[in-house]
């Protein structure tokens, strides 16, 4: 277990906080945390230490059908990966 996913709903907004590292080994847990969300998803990645394409894949999948908002920390490796992947084109970005 390299990461914690904490989800909560506030009306139709599902907020998931990611703490730790996300790779192919636990991307499924992120998926689970997002399953059944309403029209809006907020994923707080400001405390995520690592994110690879497996995690990105989950986020891209949800960005297609919902309004996705990502919370990032400036200057981290995660921000670089998110920007390079093009996820910024389909999700709203907020900095903590």
């Amino acid at each position: 277990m390299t990461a914690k996913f904490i989800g909560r709903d506030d009306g139709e907004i599902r907020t998931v906080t990611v703490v730790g590292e996300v790779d192919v080994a636990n991307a499924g847990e992120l998926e689970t945390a997002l399953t059944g969300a309403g029209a809006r998803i907020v994923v707080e990645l400001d405390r995520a230490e690592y994110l690879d394409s497996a995690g990105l894949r989950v986020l891209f999948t949800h960005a297609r059908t919902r309004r996705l908002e990502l919370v990032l920390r400036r200057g981290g490796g995660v921000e670089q990966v998110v920007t390079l992947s093009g996820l910024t084109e389909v999700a709203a970005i907020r900095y903590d």
Partner: protein
Amino acid sequence: MGRLIAAKDWSATPLGAVRRWSPELVAAINTCLPSRVPMLLWWGPELLQIYNDAYVPTLGDKHPRSLGQPAAECWAEAWADLGPLARKVLDGEGATYSDNHPLLLNRHGYVEETYWTFSYSPVLDRAGEVLGIFVATTDTTRQVLGERRMRALHELAAARGAVDPDAACEAIRRVLGEFTADIPHAEIHVAAESGAAARVMVSGRAEWRDDVVVQPLVASGRPAPIGALVLGISPRRALDTDYRLFLDLVAGQVGQILAHALDYQAERQRAEALARLDRAKSEFFSNVSHEFRTPLTLIAGPAEDALADAAEPLAAGQRERLRIIRRNAGRLGRLVDDLLDFARIEAGRLQPDAVDIDLAALTREVAESFGPAVRRAGLEFTVSAPPLPRAARVDPDMWEKVLLNLLSNALKYTRSGGIELSLLATGDHARLTVSDTGVGIPEDQIPLLFQSFHRVQGSSGRSPEGTGIGLALVHELVRLHGGSVSATSETGVGSEFSVLLPLSDADRAATHRPRGSTVYLEEALRWSAPEPMPSSVGVKDSAVVLVVEDNADMRGFLLRLLEPHWRVLLAADGTTGLRMARTHQPDLVLSDVTTPGLDGFGLVRELRADPATAPIPVLVLSARSGEIDTVEGLAAGADDYLPKPFSSNELVARVRANLELARLRSRESRFRRALVDSLQEGFLVADGRGAVIEINSAFTEITGYPASELPTSWPHPWLFDAEEWPEEHRAQQKAFERFLAESGGQFRIPLRHRKGHRIWVAVSTTTVPDDGGERLFVCTLRDVTAEKLAAERDTTITRFAAVLAAATDVGEVLGSGIAALRLALGVSDAVAAIFSADGAPELVVGDLHQAAREALTAAKSRPVATVLVALSETPGVAAPLGGNDAAVWLGLGTGRLLSAEEEALFGLLSSHLAQALHRARDYERAREVALTLQHAILGPTDLPPGFAVRYEPAVQPLEVGGDWYDVARLPDGRIGVVVGDCVGRGLEAAAVMGQLRSSARALLLRANGPAQALEDLDTFAAQIPGALCTTLFCAVIDPADGTLRYSNAGHPPPVLAHLDGTHELLSERSLPLAVMPGRSRQETKAQLRPGSTLLLYTDGLIERRDVPVLEGIGAAQQLVLDSTALRPSELADRLLAELLPPVGHDDDVAVLVYRHPPPPLALELPALAEKLASMRTDLRAWLARADVTADAAEPIVVAACEAVTNAMEHGYSADPDGRVRVTVRLDGSRVEVVVTDTGRWLTPDPAPRERGRGVRMMRALMDDVVIDSGNNGTTVRMWRRRST
């Protein structure tokens, strides 16, 4: 550059088309192009230019035009300089080398001042013909300018000490005039309110740009700038950070120089004003003395007339009174004359009316006239003044004054034995000696004897009367005659005064009769006058009054005043007075304060100390009027005090009143009441059961409990409750137990005031038997609350100051200050903050809540020590901490108010804190400047991979130092490193360091190895004053094969640590620099292994006063061994953090760390997703060890993971037992990652858009990605630079 060269049409140039280029040219280009060292190739007789990427910045906007351009055309502005050098090489004279060569280059749109270290080497063909020139260059502009600017600052610093603003400006002008290259123009404008209005053109010769820099002239200790400095900017230099810093520092220096000059000027003006005041005083003195003479004459004259009046003769009693008047008017007249003489001498207006006289005859006569006084005192008087061979040129009146002063002085201090006067010729001089067998003068007082108004302390003469002017006057009078006076003395044995006076050439002399001043004689006679006899005629009262008075006239006067009323006893000094008081038990003692022997206060103390004489009332008389005397007199226990002059009636009335009072006291019942109530101290009597039965009014005043509430039974209302006031309760309990055990004693205890607050009292208790046999307890008490608070406050302040003194930086000062404030004032809510210019908090210690923030903002711009009290919902106090941007807040919680004392204490503590903060800020600013300076000299921080360097200035004193490091990329890919340490610190050491550093670098770039470099440096250093005994370690590292060649010049041994835990010290015996120039240096080879760490350092890192050096080196060694997984920069930080003492290291430190590329990382992992996390951990550790910068490391980790994930997902989707191999290694300046699997990739990918993301990510993150996929598996190879 390769592309640019390929794209250029060369056929139009003399070089011709590329395919026709000679093999030599191609080889030369191939050497030049890949190099990271700036390289330029000049080819053919026209010197056509070809250069590599690293050289492009050197060209500025000459590039790309410069490619293929003839050198003479490209460098037209400098060709007059460079052409001849190139010519020599072309002519076959071999390579050239130029060190710090100045060149004016136009490559950024303006003519720029630059400096270069460069070499031209010929490129030869097989026949030895010169085909072209290799040019290797290093831009040394920054170092050269840095050194020059250092020198400017140094010389400015030396210009301090000018004594007025004009001289200061002139000194600054002189210095700046030598540095017009950096400061072509300067103007100083001094603000008028600084004490001098000046606008000075400092230097305006050189051209400068239209723009100037205007700097405020600030100086420490001055709140506002003292003026402004206008500095022209060199048109040949861009205004970069270095230049700006330099101008800042110049302004700082100029400000200090001017401030110093202004201070000095102000000081001089003050001194002049004082001298004027002194002259005015002398003049006033002289006028006043003069004014005295008229009334004195009018007192003495009529008195004389009345005494001489034979027509209407006075009765005997009246005559006696008038004699007193005449005598004392005469004495006063003499004092005034002395003072007048003195004032005249000081003003230079008293000139001797000198005539040639028979000095011996005059001296004999004057001595004889004084004889009666000496003989009446019962002393022997010997005069020996045989005729002198020649006359002396003397003012007879003045000589008489000298003699009489010396004689009366001798008489005054001699109680038995004799006085001897002799006048003898010694060569050209007459020597007068007056010696006595008196009390003598303490040795330390002798040098002060002849100073005006100085009176010898602690000696007892016949009369303590005197102004301290006599001997000073003697000295001045003798000096006016060209003579000198001296004294020798032995305490208890006697003194001898000698006057040496030149004799005149005349052998005939007039005899001169002395003027016959009787004043001295009369005064001296009075010292041993017969006592007036008290008579017992007409006494109405049987009371006895003892008069103690040294002045005989005064004694007589008092006798006549008191005699009609009481019986009078007389004593001439304190000791006699005391003896008589004990014998006769007088009803009252009337004593002068300044009596010889035992003085008036001493007498009172003695009388009070003896129970037999303690009740006798004492009335003290003194001529010195002033509050202090009164207080001293009453404190000593005198009952009353009367200053002189007093009226006769008043004296009699006072004596009567005091006698009455004493009589009252003698009546038993009233005596106690009067005594108790007259006591300043509180008084309490309790019975055997502890019930208080009597208190006095002072007790009520102190404690608030009135006598009307008596009797008060135990427990008394002033005792503290154990629960509410546990500490005070304990203190009272302890004192009470001691009292019971000892039946009395003295205590300092807290009492509960009637109003509830705590007071402190000093209690003295005793047990006395009552008449009825019961025991009574008697206490007296004094309120010591204020003393106690003051003492506590002092302790608090001292403790506070100690806490602050230990803190060094701003954060620490505020942190400890807040903690100490909490403790001192017993509050928990304390906040200190520093605000930035826009009002946002910049540094906060404590919880900055809304109320605190508002109060702090309000307080921060107030003058220090102001206390603002906030009475809002959150009550508290705030105080500023100086600098208009810092303040401290204490929240008090509801219901608590600060007392006035606490508020004052808070103000005081906050101002201490403000001072400490000011100190810390000054310190930080100074440190910043020192660091910036050193870094300006130490140059670029752009290091090859694997290296980390640090420089840390000494804390005390904070100055730039002589330590340095250097890392130089050599043309062949090897790297030269140097760490050195110049003797001394400060700008001088820094300047020496700068020269050695650039020389060492140049030598390393040129020479054949470190030993050769050191040998050359020995020779060079021998010519630089201050370079002797510099220690340095010089090495060349080959990053490719790990060889390390080094040579040491007396420097502490570097540490080499290997990954397997073994380590070596590179310690060879060697001499410091320049000790034996010309002697050969040893060169040693060491082998770096993969992952080895090399640490170079200066002694500041390992030398501690109390720790052996080897132990210090051992500690550094251990840290290096423990830190093989840290990046070099992290290791360097750790070394400084853990090895330097937490506060105040007093030497500067340079540290250089090199990490050799570690062995490749080889991992093999099963195709299980959960293995990815641990793989990342291993990979990150390896990247740190390999000094891959953080921003390059994380992309490599992501890319490697993506590759492994792909291998797991695609290659082994059907084979969970498959294994993935990951290899990571350093490939020069790149990191290579290879991920290999042996599985079969599923093709086609079911969802290419999603699945291909991993590969896209790898390509985006890495510089280069090669994927090689086949039937036997897939290999992904990726590369990325080690640093971004």
